């Protein structure tokens, strides 16, 4: 975390200098890097090969996010990311992944949003899978066939980088597709 803070401080100070020197409005923005997270990793691997914990995935983790495959509660994730959000002057997001059961647990949503606000998260998002059966209209998380009518005609909405995507297996580059596959839910973890 110390290293991360040093890097963000460097960005922040450089931006302040550019702003002053050029009289232009520079800012530190924590980008979703939809394409870069994949192409930069490809180039990195070509030059340096596969290094454990650095380039052993198909994509770089964007922004100051906890890697998507790390199993932890939403509260632990917020606690980590909240230490780095203050260095972004131009925009950043913190999100957590919950399962479809959220729809029956408004109390959990409220508690989670309040927790994020208390930690000064400037922009907070909760990703919930939203599947619907195109034949009978059933909504929830559908693994395989529709549990109500057995149809395989399913629309799978996922929020990946700031917007909802109809079919994440074709609508993204290989890096983000790999990221979606790597994502873990932050609720209901083995204690």
């Amino acid at each position: 975390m110390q290293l991360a803070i040093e890097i963000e401080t460097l960005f922040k100070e450089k931006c302040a200098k550019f702003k002053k020197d050029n009289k232009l409005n520079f800012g530190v923005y924590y980008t979703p890097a939809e394409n870069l997270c994949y192409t930069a990793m490809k180039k990195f691997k070509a030059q340096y090969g596969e290094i454990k914990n650095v380039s052993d995935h198909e994509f770089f983790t964007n922004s100051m996010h906890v890697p998507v495959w790390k199993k932890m509660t939403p509260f632990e994730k917020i606690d980590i990311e909240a230490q780095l959000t203050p260095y972004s002057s131009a925009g950043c997001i913190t999100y957590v992944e919950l399962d479809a059961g959220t729809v029956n647990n408004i109390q959990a949503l409220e508690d989670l949003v309040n927790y994020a606000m208390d930690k000064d998260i400037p922009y907070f998002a909760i990703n919930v899978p939203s599947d619907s059966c195109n034949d009978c209209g059933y909504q929830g998380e559908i693994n395989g066939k529709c549990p109500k009518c057995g149809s395989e005609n399913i629309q799978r909405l996922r929020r990946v980088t700031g917007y909802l995507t109809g079919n994440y297996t074709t609508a993204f580059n290989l890096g983000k597709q790999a990221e979606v596959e790597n994502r873990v839910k932050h609720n209901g973890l083995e204690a």
Partner: protein
Amino acid sequence: MNYASILKADIANGQGFRVSLFVSGCARNCKGCFNKEAQDPAFGKPFDDKAKQKIFNELEHDWCKGLSLLGGEPLSKLSDNRKVVIELAKEIREKFPEKD
């Protein structure tokens, strides 16, 4: 009493974020049981002090609303579930009076 698992930050088994204990043992064998393997009282691991401490650690968090008991059957007579669960509930009531 044995238990199958303890889940933290669980939102599927009660209001808010909770800690959930799935105990082992149930004689009812209902149609459509969602945890058939946990009907066997020998399923999982013994519910020892370490397991109990895991639950207490979760209840320490302000965001943790309380404990949900599932199974198996928390009050099953196949093992000493009833005694262990009642003792656990009493201890939590005393240590964490604000939790449900």
